[in-house]
């Protein structure tokens, strides 16, 4: 099928099987490698992107859902010169260890702060528990979210 949608502000049109996951469209068809494959069954959150402004697991979004959609990936969040405040907070807190899950963590955190600019620690845990980190960086993730809240002026 032909699917036309926007990725990070650029209109894309791809010819793919209708049940192809968005994750593979992003990585294999469009060449955006920042979104990671972790489990393929929405158990880990590594592949989180924004679809029409909502955090979703891209391994579960199929091509037939994409026509007209607006997708944001980690590459579209900020730039190396002007990172998103959440990316700034992640860097200043030095959250990442191996880093593999962190693009999904950041995309989920941005979505959370968009909905709730000043979440409590419990609310941070409720939202971020779907994003696993085998390096165990959870304390620094929570610390970075708190810093991002300050940076965003909540």
């Amino acid at each position, binding site marked *: 099928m032909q699917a036309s949608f926007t990725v990070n502000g650029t209109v894309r049109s791809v010819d793919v099987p209708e049940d192809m996951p968005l994750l593979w469209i992003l990585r294999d068809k469009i060449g955006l490698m920042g979104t990671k494959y972790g489990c393929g069954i929405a158990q880990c959150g590594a592949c989180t992107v924004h679809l029409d402004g909502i955090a979703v*697991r891209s391994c579960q979004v199929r091509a037939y859902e994409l026509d007209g959609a607006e997708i944001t990936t980690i590459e579209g969040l900020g730039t190396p010169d002007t990172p998103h405040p959440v990316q700034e907070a992640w860097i200043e807190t030095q959250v990442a260890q191996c880093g593999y899950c962190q693009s999904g963590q950041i995309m989920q955190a941005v979505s959370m702060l968009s*909905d709730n600019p000043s979440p409590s620690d419990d609310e941070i845990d*409720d939202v971020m*528990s779907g994003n696993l980190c085998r390096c165990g960086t959870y304390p620094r993730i929570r610390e970075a979210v708190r810093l991002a809240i300050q940076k965003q002026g909540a």
Partner: protein
Amino acid sequence: MQSLFRIFMPVFVCILGTISWADGDTPATISAPAAGSVTPAEGLAAFDRVYEVVSHPRCANCHTGPDNVPMWYGDSAGPARPHGMNINAGQSRIGVETLICSSCHRTSADLRSAPHAPPRAGLDWQLAPVEFEWFGKTPAEICAQLSDPDRNGGRDWMGLAEHLVDDAGHFGFVLWGWNPGGGRDPAPYSLQAHVDDVLIWGVAGQPCPVDTN
């Protein structure tokens, strides 16, 4: 031959892994027994089967109480346990306060899913209204809830049967209960048998069992 095709076509399609039916058809039909034709004993027997369905994990796991926590398993996969990842659907019952259910459970008429992957349905994934708490409830408690319009969406027994057929017609959770994909145990009996049992129970006057303990 054409009628045979219409009868068996859904079976063939299910074998292929996709559920479909022709325009104008419905996934189940409503045909109530004549008034006065069902004894209270037959009505109670029908409710016993209704209870088997609504207390099955495919149904009860998302009919949980005011803690707003969906359940996993409770079938051949193992004992029931709270949904992993600390999931809480919030008072919205659809997760907007925390992580919206459709972040993982996509809305799609394609009910297929991989083992252990989040199932999908044609309606936005969500917990049932809290008044419909079925998980861990007794037959008498569930029968009382289903009989109470203040706690069942304002429905009489015919309204309950129509709700089942309407939800299934949208590839919703009712249809999913018998087509859960991913190697999950389906609800017992069939959608049509369940609709028929609700109608039998209704015509019998909605008799309810009495809890013995």
